[in-house]
């Protein structure tokens, strides 16, 4: 057949429909998250000194290195470019205590990527949030080092160096709200400044990387659950605002629980997920042996995500309600 109209110098493509695609790409979303983490990183340096950059750097380098190495061993295409390992490294670094030892950081980073992610098949297949897996591993392996806190640079209190939650748990001391909002308190590198986290978090929601449902559910949840206890006994139990700002809750809210891979797919599921985390956080903080429970709460809810998904599939169009 005569087809002068079709250029014969190269082969046209034969693909399945649809033939056009949106501009969104995984890579782009990943780098947005990296950008959103910058305020938290800055707050870490401001409050705890420049050494903290080394911790984060170590974490990032080892995360990326591990990912690269494992893909090499598995003879798969390297996926370092998509930025996910960088994010894991950043997140892990930012939830470690200030002046944490670099060698332990490296161990945690390797564990995060190797066991938290790659052993499940790599990006997109992991069940648990890799950074939290790394943190939980470090918590279990080096429980003393990881609960040794340093005072922030502008601290008025020179004696105690505990986090507000530990101060509450063991000594029944409440920290006031204002330093907690700015970040002038003891705690993990990136977790102390609510302000910096909010800037990053709102940016993520604004550009559409993060769905608002999970953060909203978590915040609403903690206010409700903490509020109930607070109303029962305001002396014994901390108020909701304290619960919201203390520890890693906000950081977990915006950067950990919203991780695409390990959070539910469906909107109903996202609400259940967020509320579940908030509930577990309150329960662990109040009844548990540990002062902080955000990490465990998110990990536990991560583990039930498949089940949440399963039972919250949306009603298929046209099916009886």
């Amino acid at each position: 057949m005569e087809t002068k109209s079709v250029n014969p110098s190269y082969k046209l493509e034969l693909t399945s429909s649809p033939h056009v695609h949106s501009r969104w790409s995984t890579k782009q979303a990943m780098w947005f998250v990296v950008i959103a983490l910058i305020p938290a990183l800055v707050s870490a340096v401001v409050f705890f000194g420049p050494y903290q950059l080394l911790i984060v750097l170590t974490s990032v380098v080892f995360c990326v290195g591990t990912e690269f190495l494992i893909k090499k061993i598995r003879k798969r295409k390297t996926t370092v470019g998509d930025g996910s390992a960088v994010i894991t490294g950043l997140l892990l670094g930012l939830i470690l205590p200030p002046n944490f030892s670099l060698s332990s950081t490296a161990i945690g980073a390797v564990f995060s990527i190797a066991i938290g992610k790659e052993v499940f098949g790599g990006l997109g297949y992991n069940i648990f949030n890799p950074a939290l897996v790394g943190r939980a591993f470090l918590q279990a392996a080096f429980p003393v080092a990881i609960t040794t806190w340093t005072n922030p640079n502008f601290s008025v209190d020179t004696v105690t160096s505990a986090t507000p939650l530990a101060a509450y748990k063991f000594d029944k001391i409440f920290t006031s709200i204002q330093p907690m909002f700015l970040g002038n308190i003891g705690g993990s590198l990136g977790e102390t400044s609510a302000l910096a986290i909010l800037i990053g978090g709102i940016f993520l929601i604004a550009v559409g990387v993060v769905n608002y449902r999970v953060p909203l559910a978590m915040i609403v949840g903690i206010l409700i659950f903490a509020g109930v206890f607070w109303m029962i006994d305001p002396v014994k139990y901390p108020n909701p605002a304290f619960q919201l700002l203390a520890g890693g809750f906000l950081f977990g809210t915006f950067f950990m629980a919203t991780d695409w891979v390990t959070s539910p797919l469906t909107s109903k599921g996202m609400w259940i997920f967020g509320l579940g985390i908030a509930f577990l956080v309150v329960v662990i903080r109040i009844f548990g042996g540990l002062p902080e429970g955000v990490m465990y709460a998110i990990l536990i809810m991560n583990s039930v995500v498949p089940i949440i998904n399963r039972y919250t599939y949306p009603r298929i169009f046209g099916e009886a309600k």
Partner: protein
Amino acid sequence: MDLFIIFISAAIVNNFVLSLFLGICPFLGVSNKTSSALSMGMAVTFVMVLTAIVSWILYFLILIPFKLEFLQIPSFILVIASLVQFVEMVIKKVSQPLYRALGIFLPLITTNCAILGLALLLSMREYSLIQSIIFGLGAGAGFTLALFIMAGIREELELTDVPKPFRGVPISLITAGLLALAFMGFAGMI
């Protein structure tokens, strides 16, 4: 309150599977479908409660008065085995659908160390009959919970690209490890 603590302790804090390592075989085996995990969990819980009652009676009303503590293991296992067999027969007679849902898991339960572990623990801890029942219920609930979560994850893992040497049992073990890590959050809650 005491009973509540026994229940929570057995179900979550000192979960049979994740911190006491009892019932690992069925945990690894029957956790590949949520439906069968739930059925298995229910069957185990049922048998656990029955075992708690029967072994309590056997231990505290027969073995101890007659100073036969040394017969604990063989008599417990025989009782459990016949109990399971009996339950299987009853279910089969009473309801075929129930048998298809629960009954087929019963042969597995005989060799499930969680059941015998339960019987041994309750005699060791000298629980009362009521406490034993609650303990059995809690242990069963904890087992079901772990199995159900694991099944959910494994259904998901079916769809993933786990490195070949890690497929199957190794990845299940690693997942269980991470699950145990996550459940450490409940430590100290008793």
